């Protein structure tokens, strides 16, 4: 039976959120990554084909925000095909919005 081997890669992910929100939680590969003033820095060796990132944004309805992110895997730049550039959004309903990235690495 054939087996698939996934190489362990060093993945670096950085993101900055700009906006007057109440709270930002960033979950990467299922774990909460603490941010400092809405700035996230992640540097880990992982054995996966995708980097899963979830931004949980809470605040007043009507609050606009911009997320800038960058990702490298083994030194090569990687992007999410749905969000290839800066993410511009607004908290529109129930004071909460969730944005998920799935970056092939």
């Amino acid at each position, binding site marked *: 039976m054939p087996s698939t081997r996934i190489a362990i890669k060093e993945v670096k992910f950085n993101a900055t959120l700009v906006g007057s929100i109440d709270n930002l939680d960033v979950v990467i590969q299922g774990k909460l990554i603490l941010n400092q003033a809405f700035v996230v820095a992640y540097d880990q060796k992982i054995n996966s084909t995708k980097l899963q990132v979830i931004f949980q944004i809470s*605040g007043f309805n009507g609050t606009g925000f911009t997320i800038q992110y960058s990702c490298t895997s083994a030194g090569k730049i990687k992007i999410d095909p749905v969000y290839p550039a800066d993410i511009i959004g607004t908290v529109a309903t129930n004071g*909460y919005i969730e944005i998920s990235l799935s970056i092939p690495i």
Partner: protein
Amino acid sequence: MKLYLLLILASISTLASAQDYFQDRHNNGNPIIFSADGSHNLLFSAGVNVSDKSSVKANLYRQYWLNESTYQPLAVPRQKDFLGWGISIKANLTNGLGSLFSAGNLNAAFNGGAYLAYTQLTWKTTADGKGTYYSNWALILSQNLNYASYQFFNPAQPYNNQLSVHNFHGQVTALSYVLQLHPKKDNLLIGASLSFSHRSNYDNLQSVLITNDSLISGAGKVRTVQETNDNGNIYAFGRFQEYTNYNFRLNATFIPAAFEYKVGFTIYPSVDISPIYRVRYNAGLALSYLKDKSPSTPIASLIFEFDDLNNSSNRQGSFLSRSFNVSIATSLNILTGTR
């Protein structure tokens, strides 16, 4: 150690992130933080309130994330708990801001205090089970001491004794609660506060502007109003009293999507109970112009207050002249964060 700075213009009352809760025409309020990511955990704020009783104030607030080690970001429901402390100072200017800039006068009245705040952020499943609903609340216990140097005019005294100064020491203990909701597209903040204080009736006395600095010679008829008087030339007259006051206040702010989050409407009725007056009813209204794409950040607020609606202190004059007050509030808040 890294230091982050975020400038936020303006403030008023019940508005959110790093804003004052229960601020009013008297520039009262306790700034706390809802930027509860554990990094925006230090706040310095300064504000100016322009009205007939103008004031300047500054606050420092520090908070700690209590359940950081057990927090589960993917669970619903979930919550974050914070405990914070703050200190505040405020100086009133008897003669308005003019005296501040011209003579650096800050000693007409001084208020300093400390407060503790417990805040909780919660995330729950929406009623239809398809989304997440965010809300938060805060409970604030504050203790303030104040000092004021009051000036009195007593026309019944001999001419050279008609003007006097009285130093007043008071205190305020308050417990405040605010709940921040985001129903569908709108924003709503609801709060209540209970306080007891040792205060005076100075603000209810009639005031007079004495600018006559001429010297009138004669037996016992010499009165000099010094132009360099630190407290200016406004004097109160009437029966001065110190007393204990109990105040209960409700507070609601609505920021509707219908106005594209550009306007916030605030209402805050209150009741005062004291041994020297009948029950006293007050009401306040505020209109806030909010920063574009940042409805938690007021740029400026226009505050209307109707004090003592039932004239429990038996002041003279028309309803508007004795009860109605208006002011504009703005401030600069600086968030700093370290970990």
